[in-house]
């Protein structure tokens, strides 16, 4: 069978999933971006990319969630909402099925996000320097 590049309209649908995964996006929206009916779109997408559109969108969200679990100190709920998923319960289930460990356990397997924060010494010195306090500011009542 001769190779043919996926049609531009299907790429557009996939680009939408890649670009707007954090919004409450669904297969309907992807179909609309491709200008096709939902059933027709799902068939064409699968034929072109080898997986159904909902699976593509979901795995994009999971990939982004995994990156946020590694790179940020946000809560699991926040990570779930940040990638456009509404239910923490089903996020945890799907994540665990995909990665073999729960989101919390996945995070624990990686160095904490703060280790990735390459805060330079100048910033540490600037931000860790305490406010100067004089005796008077410390105990105004002592003056009375």
């Amino acid at each position, binding site marked *: 069978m001769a190779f043919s590049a996926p049609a531009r309209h299907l790429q557009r649908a996939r680009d939408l999933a890649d670009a707007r995964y*954090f919004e409450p996006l669904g297969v309907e929206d992807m179909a609309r971006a491709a200008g096709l009916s939902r059933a027709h779109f799902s068939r064409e997408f699968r034929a072109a990319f080898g997986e159904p559109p909902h699976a593509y969108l979901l795995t994009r969200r999971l990939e982004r969630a995994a990156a946020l679990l590694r*790179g940020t*100190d946000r809560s699991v709920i926040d990570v779930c909402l940040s990638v456009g998923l509404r239910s923490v319960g089903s996020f945890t289930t799907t994540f665990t099925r995909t990665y073999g460990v729960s989101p919390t356990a996945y995070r624990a397997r990686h160095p904490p*996000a*703060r280790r990735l*924060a390459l*805060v330079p010494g100048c910033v540490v010195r*600037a931000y*860790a320097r305490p*406010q100067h306090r004089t005796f008077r500011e410390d105990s105004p009542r002592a003056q009375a």
Partner: protein
Amino acid sequence: MLKIATTQLWVEDQEEALAFYTQKLGMEVRVDATLPELEGFRWLTVSPPGQEDVTIVLMALPGPPVMDEETREQVRTLMAKGFAGTVFLTTDDCHASYEDLKAQGVEFTEAPEERPYGIDSGFRDPSGNHLRLTELRELATT
């Protein structure tokens, strides 16, 4: 060999900047870590998908004792005027990116126009920082 790893932008509000750089410009969060021992200092970096080795730190404008009030106001003024630094972005299709970003509500100061080096446009982030968005032309190597 020297490489650019991270560059820094002052921002008025990190949450607002984060929403802008990720949701409007389509960048990804690389690191978001708050350090309690540094008075809650938040290291927040973003970069475009596929470009993980170059990041922008979105740095909150600090108050005293890191930055005195007068300096803070000066930086804030420069930022609002768009003179506190510029980020130069490139795109494959300036007109298409311009339309996409405008539809997202990005405030352009310059619509795409022909320049000797390609098609160039400019916009601002919520803090007033200036960003360029350029489709570079392949320069003749003669």
